[in-house]
């Protein structure tokens, strides 16, 4: 085993994930029909049993300024878990996550307040990020421009919006603060081509302002066109970390094997890729 000592890389660290892991404790409401003892029946009377799921094995990662990190992996691989941990919404079961500021997450499902209008949602969202009323009014034109919504649409309550419209609005609101760390979870897949271009431009802007962006997507094209680094997470483990071109290609081969039911070849590829990964360890330096 060799140890590679590396000096400071270019860019300041923005996000440092230090051996963070996640074990879910899930209550399952189950209706079992097979034979059970009386005791099991009594215990099961509430209909809830508890199981532990290791969603993410200890993982270390450093993300620096100006990086747009694509996150790929099959369903249930642990990508979303990692993103939730980054925002602080899900505390790691072990390990710690450090960041220069609290990451802001964008997801398709996180609608704002459905009963109030688009305009009011802009105000509410901006105020929720800590702006003053004046700052909100200054930002409003740019938010509207990024969202691409018309004035008449903005006067409607959010429940009248399509999912694409509300995720566009949410993207526009969430990026209006110029967040240092932005996490985008599948949000782009719902937008049309025009919005995708606008999003790309906005992501590039944020990166240029010494921030970093995480992009979770199943669209390998989106990852290739919008990111400059890509990590692949599979079965709760970091498998690959590198150029988007290379990582997406390997990942594509893996999914192809799995789709063709060539599980053995897939497992071999996964194991070989994992072997080649250089594990990262965080060495803290005191001032």
């Amino acid at each position: 085993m060799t140890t590679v000592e590396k000096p400071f890389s270019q860019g300041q660290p923005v996000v440092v994930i230090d051996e963070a892991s996640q074990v879910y404790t899930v209550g399952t409401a189950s209706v079992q029909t097979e034979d059970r003892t009386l005791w099991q029946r009594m215990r099961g009377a509430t209909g809830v049993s508890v199981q532990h799921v290791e969603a993410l094995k200890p993982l270390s990662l450093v993300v620096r300024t100006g990086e747009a990190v694509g996150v790929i992996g099959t369903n249930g691989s642990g990508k979303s878990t990692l993103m939730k941990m980054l925002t602080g919404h899900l505390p790691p079961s072990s390990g710690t996550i450090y960041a220069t500021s609290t990451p802001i997450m964008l997801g398709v499902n996180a609608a704002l307040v459905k009963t109030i209008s688009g305009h009011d949602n802009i105000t509410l969202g901006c105020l929720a990020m800590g702006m003053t009323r004046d700052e909100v009014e200054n930002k409003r034109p740019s938010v509207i421009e990024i969202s691409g919504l018309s004035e008449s649409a903005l006067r409607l309550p959010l429940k009248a919006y399509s999912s694409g419209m509300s995720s566009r609005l949410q993207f526009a609101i969430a990026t209006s603060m110029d967040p240092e760390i932005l996490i985008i979870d599948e949000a782009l897949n719902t937008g049309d081509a025009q919005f995708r271009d606008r999003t790309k431009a906005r992501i590039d802007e944020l990166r240029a302002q010494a921030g970093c962006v995480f992009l979770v997507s199943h669209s390998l094209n989106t990852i290739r066109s919008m990111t400059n680094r890509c990590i692949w997470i599979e079965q709760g483990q970091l498998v690959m970390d590198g150029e988007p071109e290379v990582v997406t290609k390997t990942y594509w081969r893996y999914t192809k094997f799995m789709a063709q039911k060539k599980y053995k070849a897939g497992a071999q590829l996964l194991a070989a890729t994992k072997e080649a990964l250089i594990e990262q360890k965080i060495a803290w330096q005191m001032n």
Partner: protein
Amino acid sequence: MATDDASTPSSAGDIEHIKINASNLSKVGFRPSFWTYLKQVWEFRHFIIFDSRSRIAGDAAKDSLGQTWLVLNPILNGAAYFLVFGIMLGTGRGIENFVAYLIIGVFMYRFTVSAIVAGSKAISGNRSLVTAFNFPRMTLPIAINVRELMRQMIAFVTMIGLIAIIPPLEPISWKWLMFIPIVAIQFLFNLGLSLVLARIVTVWNDFSHIITFGTRIWMYLSAIFYGVERFEDLPIVLTFMYANPLFCILDMTRDVLLYDAWPDPMRWLVLGSWTVGLLVAGSIIFWQGEETYGREER
């Protein structure tokens, strides 16, 4: 960068040690100190005001009668109680101006109950907002209580109007102005209780069922449709009654609006202690759960 010199393929099990200077990094998802937290809540006051105002408009749009229900609901309840307790069971016997007595009981009870029931759901009912933005979560129960206060304004005007027109007519005096500080304290009391309940509900969602039950029991125990005089021979019951903050609110309101009297200083003291106690305990309890509120229910 993972893509630079160090990532050239090499033998298995390599470990790369990355030197990190911790100076401008902080842990994600940890709550600030209590005082910093309260300062943050204050900085988000615009959010509180806007949130409560926009929700009123949004809520009213659901029912065709909209805000009218705020007035209709306590009036219908009051009418039902008058029928059952006033006429059928006769609990109002010996109470001077029972109709107005009942109206004050029902309206004031409703303010506290709707505020704490809504306040207890401050986090669980706002998941999307909580997961989308990182604002101090205490702003949500505060906004809900401000909203409930604004909504009740119409109900209070109706209540005072009814007292003024339903015979026997009560003299309108300067003491009626004392109603304002009473409502102010009631608002703070509701807020303190909401903060405690909101935390409990996020930890244990089943508690919302208990809140529904608890508010019902509390109604029967708070002398809304009977007088405390009936317990004059039972000092223990009387002690409990006098220690009940909701009874204090009702009794003080009745003193100033109906009986042209100054509220008993003892009531101010009891209600004030409950309010201060709940506000302090509530903010600390709520703050302690700050980093847990964005988590998903599993």
